[in-house]
């Protein structure tokens, strides 16, 4: 059974979002997603300052069997990316919602993404057979 913390928001493409005290958003991939990918061997994160539109691929997570894009849930500007993942991609496997964060971004004004609650996301992965 996947771990789906109730204080986070989710997307249909298996990203999670956490709103930080300064109003920026922290984004990563869910425990369900890391489990489906398997052991991660490489993570490509965006350069700070990059402007993203909603749904744009901003990172690539590569496991021994596949390389997958990760999509930005909202439009905005990247304020930070997780430097530790370059040498420790497995942090996503072991701590998807903590040390495994991918980027932080400042959402564009008026960005109102359609996100899922923890309950809705749990329902989604249950339907997918997760």
């Amino acid at each position, binding site marked *: 059974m996947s771990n789906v913390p109730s204080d986070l928001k989710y997307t249909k493409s298996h990203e999670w979002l956490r709103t930080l005290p300064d109003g920026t958003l922290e984004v990563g991939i869910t425990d369900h997603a890391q489990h489906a990918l398997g052991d991660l*061997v*490489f993570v*490509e994160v*965006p*350069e700070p300052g990059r402007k993203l539109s909603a749904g744009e691929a901003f990172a690539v997570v*590569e*496991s*021994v*069997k*596949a*390389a997958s*894009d990760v999509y930005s849930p909202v439009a905005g500007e990247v304020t930070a990316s997780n430097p530790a993942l370059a040498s420790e991609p497995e942090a996503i496997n072991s701590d998807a919602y903590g040390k495994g964060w991918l980027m932080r971004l400042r959402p564009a004004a008026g960005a109102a993404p359609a996100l899922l609650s923890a309950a809705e996301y749990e329902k989604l992965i249950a339907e997918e057979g997760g």
Partner: protein
Amino acid sequence: MAFIPHTREDVESMLETIGVGSTEQLFDEIPANLRLGTLAGVPEALSEMEVGRLMAERARLDGRPLCFIGAGAYEHHIPAAVWAIATRGEFYSAYTPYQAEASQGTLQLLYEYQTMMASLTGLEVSNASLYDGASAMGEACLMAVRANRRSRSQRILVPTTVNPLYRRAAAAVAGNQGLVFEEVPFCTEEGCIAPAALARYDGQDITALVIQQPNFFGRLEDVDALCDWARARNVLVIAVVNPTSLALLKPPGEWGSSGASKGADIAVGEGQPLGVPLSSGGPYFGFMTARMEHVRQMPGRIIGRTVDAAGRPGFTLTLQAREQHIRRAKATSNICTNQGLLVTAATVYLSLMGPAGLERVAAASHARTRELAGALTRVPGVRRLFSGPVFHEEVLALDRAVAPVLEKLAACGILGGLDLSEHYPELGHALLVCATETKTTADIERYAGALAECLREARAA
């Protein structure tokens, strides 16, 4: 078993299943003006005996001319052992077998090839080869766009001293993917890029700079200054190099003067000089090496050394997660493959020559070209076009149009070089010539004598 992929009954049954009237109809979506219709000179079907006779007759039409054309493909001596080994049954295959459990010999050979190319170019990682030098340059431009994450412009600076056919191929491979190729003009007195010509790009977002060494004119570029300019401005450096020349010249991995940021990011080139005979443009093979930091953006197959479940060493494909059989449309490349057989020949060639042998080939080619340029410039009406050092090619200026002179030389059994007027009309009557270790002093004298005669006749006429 008959080597017939499908019988007429098979074809009819398949067409009926998908509801199409004829095989031709499957190609309807290709506009008629892009379709060839017929292949002139290619007969419908012949027996093996008839094919053998036809090809022998056609080969005779070529004769055995004395070749002084370089311009991207070079005639070198190929030791007899190279193709005797490359065509052994264990290696001789139309396709490269990749199953690790069945192909350890082939995989080890490719691994050795990668090691040799990395060593020759002074870079850390090599792929298992690409189609040819020209498409390798196109792939390198696409790779640079992926690898240079601090640049968003997709602008690639391509000096016009880069092989014009490579520039055309790169534009065909990458032009429709949003890349912008900007031509950097060369100094017409020197025949190479003036590093100051790059100053106009200072402060602009440039993704990569392509540097060909030796350049299309055979001239040596100031690679250190060019590389320093690029690396100081977050511009990736793509080196296009002749593998033979690397036995004498500084490898791309060491270009530049500043310590830590030294070297090109990607090196590509045409592998043909390494044991592959000239044959109407191919098949040849392209090589590509890079800094390890860019390995995940590198297109094509990469062979790695590993251990099996029992801890025994072995070879296998590695970093496949970005290839098209896994990542489909988002793969690093959907248009590349490797050239297994030609790479086999190149690996055997390099093994037989060794570093000292390759250096002798390079030094002899350089010496022969100096001798050739010396002999030809003693002919009245011929002079050197550019000043400065060359590797094994040189541009000469004639006192009249080059094409008719080359025609007369060809009638004497001499391929006198490449007429540059098509690609570089601004250079006037310019002729690119090349001599490798295969040319003797007698060959060179024969060419000089024939050229003198041709020019004398032309002047008299």
